[in-house]
């Protein structure tokens, strides 16, 4: 059996109207691998959250007084699907400059146990990514890279 990973990479412009295209690509790939409808729905949300962050931070949250250097090319987001025998890993990579995603990942939180005056939307995206995938790693450096993995649990196929 060939256990070599197969990789599918797509690049999309860093814009909101392309996030659903990433979801469509994921749907096709995950379907072929044998993921269930519910697992695919989970991954669609997790992938979208990563893409949303990439789109929102593509142009950088520049501090006051910082000089704006024109990008050499339009910002885009790289989405890499790594098909393994028993799992699908998805890497979302952007070239945004100033978002400290690793710090944000530590702040990821839900609304459980809070009052209506204390709840807020911040941190929900990363919280959902962590809750919906088996593993999530966030790397910040030149841009941000999020790698998330969902294991394939094929029912009734254990020989």
């Amino acid at each position, binding site marked *: 059996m060939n256990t070599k990973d197969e990789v599918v990479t797509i690049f999309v412009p860093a814009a*909101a*109207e392309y*996030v*659903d295209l990433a979801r469509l690509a994921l749907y096709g790939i995950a379907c072929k691998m044998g993921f269930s409808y*519910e697992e695919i*729905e989970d991954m*669609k*949300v997790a992938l*979208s*959250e990563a893409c*949303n962050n990439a*789109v*929102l931070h593509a142009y950088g949250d520049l501090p006051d007084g910082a000089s704006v250097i024109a990008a050499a090319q339009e910002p885009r987001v790289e989405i890499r699907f790594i098909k393994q025998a028993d799992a699908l890993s998805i890497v979302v990579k952007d070239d945004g400059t100033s978002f400290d995603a690793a710090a944000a990942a530590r702040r990821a939180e*839900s*609304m*459980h*146990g*809070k*009052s*209506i*005056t204390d*709840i*807020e*939307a911040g941190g*929900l*995206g990363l*919280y*959902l990514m962590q*809750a*919906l995938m088996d593993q999530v790693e966030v790397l910040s450096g030149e841009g941000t890279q999020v790698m998330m993995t969902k294991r394939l649990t094929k029912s009734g196929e254990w020989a």
Partner: protein
Amino acid sequence: MVMKAPDKFYLRTENQEGRCTVYVNGELDLESASQMRAAMATLVELTDRELVLNLRELRYIDSTGIGILVSVLKARHAKEAPFIVEAIPPNIRKLFDMTGITPFLTGTATS
């Protein structure tokens, strides 16, 4: 033959006595968020009636959409005006439960 994709996202508002119901259709994500936010900005001000979001035809939501619901919840709470979310599909309900927003939407939160 011309094949047209269904609208990705649209809202339909129905006004009755004392009640304004907004039917949310399609995918509420980063792309449709501004449309939703704009519509809600006007509707949260209507404190003389119940604001109801009907999610029966909502196919997709992520933290962008849930964030808008949080804003509406807080705005209505501050104005002491009723806000109700109804007909939540199971896949959407799962995300509401995960994030912890469900008790606020169904009126079972403690405060």
